[in-house]
């Protein structure tokens, strides 16, 4: 029991640290020499979303593999370490797809590869089941790969401004910006609370004790959040805010962006055509 509490604490600590570092580092997004970094954020988002939609529409593994390799090419051209990128994409795949796909391997009817149980119920790993699992996993991985490329090669402010100029309302952008800005600040508060608790403890807490302290910490954090929210609103009012957010964008579409968009449309059309008409 004590170990499980320790494990939860460690996990929370590492998750907070990892997210804070990963999300805020922006080191790849700031590399101006990268292929995707040079693009107008609006065009990049449109282009990569087209590729995501194409990916989820594909029914054959061969075409999906091509699209996945294309994402790796984009990654290399954007000067993102390949291993880092692959790890980042595949870290969450088992979490998202594993639960869905695991029963499919055993339940899809077809040619059995390995029979697990004959009686009272027939359970076997089938060729069709494996094929669907691979197709599904690859589809999710490729779609996530393109999404991760957006976040890795674009600064958060540019993503928000690009979404705004693509029609997402100002108020939604403001809420998302504020949430993004303060969620990590509050997560750091949680981390500091955990450290301060750790520094004053001389024994491992039992599960019940640990939950009681967690409840109190949540309460304290809630009060802190509410106060901070109030002060942020005052700070906005003090600088002329009138409940109408104003967002400044100065994006310009260049030839480079148009060529990229045409290339994406061409690749998507060829992939869909090959998938539907030839294979």
């Amino acid at each position: 029991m004590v170990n499980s509490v320790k494990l939860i604490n460690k996990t929370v600590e590492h998750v907070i640290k990892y997210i804070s570092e990963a999300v805020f580092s922006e080191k790849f997004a700031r590399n101006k020499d990268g292929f995707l970094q040079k693009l107008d954020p609006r065009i990049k988002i449109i282009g990569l979303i087209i590729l995501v939609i194409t990916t989820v529409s594909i029914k054959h593994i061969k075409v999906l593999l091509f699209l996945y390799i294309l994402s790796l090419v984009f990654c290399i051209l954007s000067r993102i370490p390949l291993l880092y990128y692959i790890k980042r994409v595949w870290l969450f795949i088992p979490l998202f797809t594993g639960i869905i796909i695991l029963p499919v391997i055993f339940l899809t009817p077809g040619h059995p590869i390995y029979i697990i149980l004959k009686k009272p119920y027939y359970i076997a790993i089938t060729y069709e089941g494996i094929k669907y699992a691979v197709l599904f996993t690859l589809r999710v991985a490729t779609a996530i790969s393109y999404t991760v490329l957006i976040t890795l090669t674009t600064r958060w402010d540019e993503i928000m401004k690009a979404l705004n100029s693509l029609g997402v309302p100002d108020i939604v952008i403001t809420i998302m910006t504020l949430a993004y800005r303060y969620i990590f600040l509050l997560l750091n508060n949680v981390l500091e609370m955990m450290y301060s608790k750790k520094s004053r403890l001389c024994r491992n807490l039992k599960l019940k004790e640990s939950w009681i302290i967690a409840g109190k910490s949540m309460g304290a954090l809630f009060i802190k959040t509410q106060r901070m929210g109030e002060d942020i609103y005052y700070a906005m009012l003090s600088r002329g805010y009138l409940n109408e957010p104003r967002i400044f964008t100065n994006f310009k579409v260049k030839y480079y962006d148009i060529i990229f968009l045409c290339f994406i449309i061409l690749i998507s059309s060829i992939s869909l055509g090959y998938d539907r008409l030839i294979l």
Partner: protein
Amino acid sequence: MKPLYELKNIYYQYPDGTIALDNINMKIYEGEVVAIIGPNGAGKTTLLKILDALEFPKKGEVYFEGKKLEERLLNDIEFMKYFRKKVGFIFQDPDTMLFSPTVWDDVAFAPLHLYDKDTAIKVTEKVINEMNLNHIKDKHPYNISGGEKKKSSIAAVLSITPDVILMDEPTSYLDPKSRNYIINLIKDLKSKNKTIVFVSHDPNLITLADRCYILNKKIIAEGTPREIFSNVEILEENNLDVPEITKLFKLLLDDKDLISKINIDNLPITVDEAYNILKDLLKSKT
């Protein structure tokens, strides 16, 4: 001379019933530097919020340039824009003020709301250059140091070139370099005839003020920093302190062997004053 701010019998109560301010009467004149000092929980920040028309007193009146500050007046867009351009408020916690995705956007926040777009961009760039924030202007506020955050939050207010600047604990949590930056900034703003009202516990910062108020829900004392620092009893009662240099001279004067050798009218409250006293003393010895 007409006061810029006039507070008459201000009374403010928090929603939980705690009294924050009681019977506050105060006048602030144009071009003045006013320090508000007092123990924690004395209502100093609440007073600044009232001066910035973010909170309104439950009883009493606040006048700004002769106009009574009340919610109805602030709802008038023309006046609100005039007032917000005229008065800037630097909050204690810079994280409160830096809510945009980049430092540039935060500095541009007020100009974009108070000026047209072209002017807003121009004034933002100007402040970014003047305050040497170019290296962090595209960074997310989460990714900059405490000193840089403070500097950015100041830039976010100075971008509208307000005539009145309200500062809540401007030197708290800062390293010596950043602290000196704030001290020099206040001196610079003072030389430009800006009206500054700041809340602080920092004795060195308080010496920059023309006038001081000791506040502990009520106004306990008012005077120049020298008058305030000479009133040790009141300072002690309100958990306040005098500058280290003043303490040193107090110790010297309390020493019976030295008292005859040091002949001064007033205890120094700044290093410069102490330097002049010591220089004269050493010169007279030689």
